[in-house]
């Protein structure tokens, strides 16, 4: 390492680039030429791997700024360009009622409909008819012996029922398999993916698939009209966003469906 002062210089360039990128400020505020000259000047002196990594990170950030500069010019020449200060001034001057009128003239609300298919209604009726009353169901439950809750993977790992490394590796392998099988259309029919020669294995695959979807390795596409479910693998692992509304989607791993599939193959 040449000196910590030089390293700090690169860190300052990185933080400036990050700040510009995040705030959407004018990317021309970054002196790209000077930054590149600094990198060129320091490069022959770097010895340690971490210094080269820092150098590469700085170069990466500068290249992002160059890309932003291109977009900035494109935006300025587009019809949508307007000085943010002018907008700020204008919206501060406009009364809420005026803003309401502006919104009314520019808003074209999207229209959509939820609907139930005949098949789903019949399933729901059948379910309702079979469902025992709440009192009867509660009577069958054993007395609670402690705090009841769903067992999470973390708890299973903690209890040493499963091994964290092996489970993660298994998920990764499973993810790779999903990505390979979904090549082309980018998705695969749910049952085509979970199907295995034995029913037990199919259930295990369905169980693992639920983790792929919950943990951000893949998502599900449901086509209510066709009543079909597809799995869409993500190429990169997605961070879970709890700001978005999460939904649960139960799928019955019905033995009869599996049997039909097995007979059809």
């Amino acid at each position, binding site marked *: 390492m040449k000196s910590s002062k030089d390293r700090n210089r690169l860190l300052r360039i990185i933080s400036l680039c990050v700040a510009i990128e*995040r*705030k*959407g400020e004018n990317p021309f505020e970054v002196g790209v030429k000077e930054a590149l000259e600094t990198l060129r000047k320091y490069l022959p002196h770097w010895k340690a791997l971490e210094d080269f990594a820092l150098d590469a990170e700085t170069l990466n950030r500068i290249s992002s700024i160059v890309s932003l500069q291109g*977009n*900035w010019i494109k*935006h300025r020449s*587009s*019809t*949508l360009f*307007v*000085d*943010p200060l*002018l*907008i*700020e001034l*204008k*919206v*501060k*001057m*406009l009364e*809420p*009622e*005026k*803003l*309401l*009128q*502006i*919104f*009314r*003239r*520019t*808003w*074209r*609300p*999207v*229209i*959509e*409909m*939820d*609907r139930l298919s005949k098949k789903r209604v019949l399933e729901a009726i059948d379910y309702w008819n079979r469902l025992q009353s709440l009192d009867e169901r509660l009577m069958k439950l054993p007395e609670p012996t402690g705090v009841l809750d769903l067992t999470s993977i973390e708890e299973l790992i903690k209890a040493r029922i499963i091994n964290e490394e092996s489970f993660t590796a298994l998920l990764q392998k499973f993810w790779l398999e999903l990505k390979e099988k979904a090549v082309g259309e980018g998705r695969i029919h749910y049952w085509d993916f979970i199907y295995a020669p034995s029913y037990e294995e199919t259930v295990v695959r369905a169980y693992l698939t639920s983790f792929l979807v919950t943990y951000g390795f893949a998502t599900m*596409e*449901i*086509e*209510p*009209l066709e009543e079909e479910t597809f799995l869409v693998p993500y190429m990169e692992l997605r961070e879970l966003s709890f*700001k978005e*509304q999460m*939904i649960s989607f139960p799928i019955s791993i019905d033995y009869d469906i599996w049997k039909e599939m097995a007979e059809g193959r």
Partner: protein
Amino acid sequence: MAENTGAYVRKVKRAAKIIFYRRHRQPGVKGWELRRALGKEYVKIVDLLNQHLSSIGLQVNTVYEGSERPQNPTSEQLDRARFYMAVKEPLTSSDLVMSGWRVDDVAALVVAVSYIISKQGKAARKDIEQILREKFPKWRVERNLNRYIRQGYLNEVDDVLYLDWRARAEIDQKTLIKLVIGGETSPSSDQTATTP
């Protein structure tokens, strides 16, 4: 000939169902889904559907990836675009009242969206909060921004706000900016061009 017409009619009906009924968490469908269901000529089918919808004040909106609509979209751009069913003409004041929006909620949304557009599609949340707090109390500003995020108008990543799918699908951005700058909102000039 009659067979062809029949096939087109069936496809138009199918297109209406696919676009109209909710299939995913977001309304509308991607172009590639329409291509799969309707065949290569799906854009023509959507045009035919639009002709029918026009008489009842609706239209299919196409929202492309990125902020600008391409002049001559390629088949790849169309495949990645999202098709929505939307209202064709601007709403009347009474329609807007019926939609349940409060005047201050709408005002805050217009301020946030127009500021984000002027900042090339993203702006620091605190900058928008600062502008809004000149006229609204802090709690209302926070509640409103969180609500717009939940509704899909805005998206927040690391304290930076972006326009999300609903703003891009429902708000005619060019007209919005023009009106904010011009400040002219006379009810007689309601014939704003609709986004195709």
